[in-house]
Structure formats: C-alpha cells, structure tokens
C-alpha cells in the first residue's frame, strides 16, 4: 500500500479477498460443521457430538478404503516427488526448455475424465496385447501387465500430480543460486555431494511442500482413481457411491472433515514455518547497519 492510497479502499479490497476465500472455503467449513452434528446431514436440529469420529474406526468399508487411499498416496508421493525433483534439475540444466515443460505441465490441461478414459483404454489394450504376446510365447508371465490394478491407478495419479510437484519444486529452486553448487565443486565436492550437502538442504521446504501437495491431491482425487483402479475402493469412491445411493453417512462426513483438518494443519504449518523463518531473516537484516548482499 502506498502512502497516498485511500486506507478504506485498501481495507475494502482486503475484505473482498477474504470474502472470496471464505466463499470458496464454505463447503469445507460446512462439512466440518455437519461432522459434529449428532443428527447428521440435512437435519434441522443441531446437537454437538464426537460420535461420528468414533464410528469411523468401526466402519469397515471406510477403513478399508482409507487403507487403500493411504497406500496409493504414499506410493504415488514416493514416485512423483523424486521424479519431479529430477525433472526440475533437468529443466534447469537443459537449454531446450520448451519440450520438457510442455510435457510436464500438459496434464494440468487435460481434464480428469479425458485423461482417465484415455489411460483406461490404453491400459486395457496394452494388457490385451501382452496377453496375446504371452499366448504366442506360451507363457502367462505378461497376463497381469497393465491389468487395471493398484499399479495402473498409481501411474494415472503420478501423471496427475507431477505438474503440481514440478512447479512447487521449481519455484523453490528459483531462489537457489547456482554459484553455490559451483563453489562446492571448487571445494572438491563431486556433483552428487554438492547436491546433497548444499542444494538439497536449501530446497527441502519445496520438496516437503511437494510431498504434502501430492498426498492431499491423491486423497481427494476421484475421477482418475475410480477409472483406473482395480477392484478396490478408495476414500472418494466410497463417498461417491454413498452420495449417489443412500447419502453420505455421518462417519463419512467425519472422515472428510478429518482429512481437511489434517490437510489444513499441514498447509498451515508450512505457511507458519516459512512466515517465522522469513520474519527472522528480515529482522536480522534490519538489525544490521552494514549492507547485505544476498
């Protein structure tokens, strides 16, 4: 805000921004609110309760789905984040940037149902081709390749989460000065050692954020997962089947609320940590009379 700006106009703009955030947040808050209502969704009376949270554990369907979702999230994160890190390093080093960036960001622009259908049909055809190949060779070793399963769901979700992880890591890398790697090399460290000792500690917040994003995206993704998974249910597929049939159960609301509580806590921690750190840096910079270069 500059010195001559109208302070009320400035406050009005802030109010608008927060109103938009609040509007967008409304469904989240609404779910949280319902999750504490003993009478469940749509009831006029409101009685506060923890009951639904207790019932999550005894809901076999939900717990089973949760286990699969968690497994998916962990495996996808374990694949996506290192790949995004490598891709970001490659992007920084390569001179032809258009092709890699197009390939890595394009999944953002392909809608979920389109990506899901295309992968579904491709996997099914690949599976049939491998079965056919196995028949020719007299082996059944290939029969399971690309059959819809945990693996195909992982592939689909890695493609979905890659652009997000890539961008988050790339933005953090933008603040890293390549001179430091060169300085480490000049000190006798090889390329891998320089990355481990110097670059990685500095981009770690970005890598951790990428992990958080990937887990949250996988948890909340429905379309791609439901098209590509094998015969198991995930958190969101359970929710959808409940919605379209009986309506969501109280414990499903509780579960959703819990997922968003955890997610908001994680993101909030990231915001707070970076806030505290940058505040500390700014304070130190102010405290010094001499000019600071970096």
């Amino acid at each position, binding site marked *: 805000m500059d010195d001559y700006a109208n302070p009320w106009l400035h406050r009005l703009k802030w109010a608008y921004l927060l109103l938009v955030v609040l509007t*967008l947040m409304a469904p989240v808050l609404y779910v949280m609110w319902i999750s504490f209502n003993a009478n469940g969704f749509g009831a006029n009376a409101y009685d506060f309760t923890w009951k639904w949270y207790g019932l999550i554990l005894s809901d076999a369907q939900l717990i089973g789905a949760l286990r699969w979702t968690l497994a998916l999230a962990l495996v996808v994160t374990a694949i996506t984040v290192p790949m995004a890190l490598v891709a970001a390093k490659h*992007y920084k080093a390569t001179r032809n*940037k258009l092709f890699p960036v197009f390939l890595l960001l394009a999944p953002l622009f392909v809608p979920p*149902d*389109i990506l899901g259908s295309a992968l579904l049909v491709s996997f099914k055809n690949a599976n049939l081709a491998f079965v056919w190949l196995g028949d020719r060779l007299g082996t059944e070793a290939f029969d399971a390749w690309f059959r819809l399963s945990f693996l195909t769901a992982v592939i689909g979700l890695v493609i979905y989460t890659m652009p997000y992880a890539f961008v988050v890591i790339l933005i953090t890398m933008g603040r890293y000065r390549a001179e430091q790697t060169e300085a480490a090399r000049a000190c006798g460290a090889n390329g891998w050692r320089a990355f481990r000792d110097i670059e990685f500690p500095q981009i770690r917040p970005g890598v951790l954020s990428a992990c958080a994003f990937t887990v949250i*995206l996988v948890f909340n993704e*429905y379309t791609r997962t439901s098209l590509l998974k094998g015969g198991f249910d995930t958190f969101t597929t359970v929710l959808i089947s409940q919605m379209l049939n009986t309506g969501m159960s109280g414990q499903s609301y509780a579960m959703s609320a819990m997922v968003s509580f955890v997610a908001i806590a994680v993101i909030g921690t*990231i915001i707070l940590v*970076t806030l505290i750190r940058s505040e500390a840096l700014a304070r130190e910079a102010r405290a010094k009379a001499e000019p600071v270069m970096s």
Partner: protein
Amino acid sequence: MTAAASETVGGTRPAARPRASASEALGRWAFRLPLIFMLVFFALPMAMTVVFSLFERTMFWMEPGFTLFSYENFFFSARLTNFLESMKYSAIAVAICFVLGFPIAVFVRRSVPQVAQHRVILLFILPFMVSEIIRVFALRPVLQRNGLVNTTLQNLGIIDEPITALLYTHTGVVIGEVLSFLPFIVFSGFLAMEAVPKYIFEVCDDLGVGPWRRFVDVILPLAAPGIFAGSVFIFVNGLGVALLPNILGGAGAVNAGLIATQAITALDFPLAMAVSAIMMATLMALLWIGHRVFDLTRILTPLS
C-alpha cells in the same frame, strides 16, 4: 599441491577429448527418466486416442479397424449441440472467474508486502483441502429450491418466489465451475503479474494514467500469456470435468467429460476415445493459437 591434483593424469599426453564415463551416461539417462515416463504413459496414450477412436466397437470392447462411426455418432447427434453449448457456458465461467479473480492477483502483487504475497496466495489452496466431489455436492443444499441462497433472499424480502434456475441447469454448472476453478485464475494471474514490475504502477501514477487505461494498455499486454494459460485451464476443465454437470446440471447440461464417461458406462469405448481426441484437438488448437498470439514461453521466464 593437493591430493586431487596428484591423482590426475600423469605426464603429458595427447589432448584427452571429453569422454562420457558409464556413470555420467547413467546420470544423463536418469535425468531424462521423468520425461520418458511422461512420454510413454501420458503423451502416447493421449495420441493413441485418435487411433482407438477409429476402431470398431464390439459388444464389450473394441477391435482394430478403420471406421469414422464414432465421429458420426458425435457430430450428427445431440452430442455436438451439447458440446457446443458447454463450450459457451464454459467461456462464460472463464469470464466470470477472470472478473472476480484477476483483480485479486493484481491487488496481492501491488499492495501486499513482498514476503507475505505467497502466503496470501496460499490461502486460495485451502478449498482444495476437501475433495472436489464434496465441494460440488455441498452446493446442492445451497442452491436448491429451499436452499441457503433462496431462503436468505426470501427472508431479506428481495425475492418472493424461490429461484429454481440455480440448480440442475446450465447456471448451476457455471456456478460450480466458478467456485471450483476461481483459485486457478488467482494462481495464474499471480504468476502472470510477475511480468509486471511494481514500478509500473508508480510510473502510471506519475504519468496520470487512470486504472482502466493502465489495465488495458500496460497490465493486460504484459500479463497476457499467464492470463491466457489460466483461462485455457478453466475453459478446458469446464468442458472436461464430468462431475459438475453430473451433480449440478440438468437436461442438456452435458459436457465432453460427461459424454466420455457415459460412453464408457455404455461400453462404447471408441466413442469415448473420439471425445477424448476431439478434446485434445480443441486443447492443442487453443494452445497453438495462444502461442502464436502471446508467445506462451514468456510464462516460463519467472521459472527459469
């Protein structure tokens, strides 16, 4: 003299040409691994949609062949009308998102202290902390006949009769799109505003350029590639996310994503592939036009 130096080559020898050791070659391939993965599992399946869309439909699956039946099925039926309609409403959603969201990006870039900017923008990812299906589903009780919006407006005495056009209509889908995709115009607008240095505002103030002229003559041309990318994202997702018309739409509110999923449910896989191919063609055409007009590589400047 250090250990490093003494273990180098001994004596004089003919100029050692740069040679790639096995580990170096391995490293180079490791760096390409993500791109290879994306080529095999993303680019290839997307390209194969064209091939599969030409296959013959069988009872439960498809078999190799060459037929334009799926395209006929798409272009000479209500599907085309639905597709074009959804394009129109998707474009409306883009416009609304831009009007509501882009000023936020400008405001944050201009009036929020540098260190806090990213955190203010991070506020807009909070809605993604709950699954999209719940967010969309939760709109039903808000928009329905006796929902939150109608009862509030009636209690305030603004309307007498509940507005029924809010749900199970195109309007409902547009509302859902705006609420789902608004954050993306804030993100892309924020990135796009990186191309507009802060001093621009001071220069404009100094020259007496009003907010409107400043927006049209300075901000828009500089931020155009980023705005375009965000708009394409919203437009394409408006066409392709089946969930929105599925839950909020009614008769006629059918987009490409819904056509594809319905085709898959009906086991008409070639049709689903034809829809995917048409969507990819639409996307490619938009990106190509955008690249010709705005040079989309400019978006990458802050990233490189």
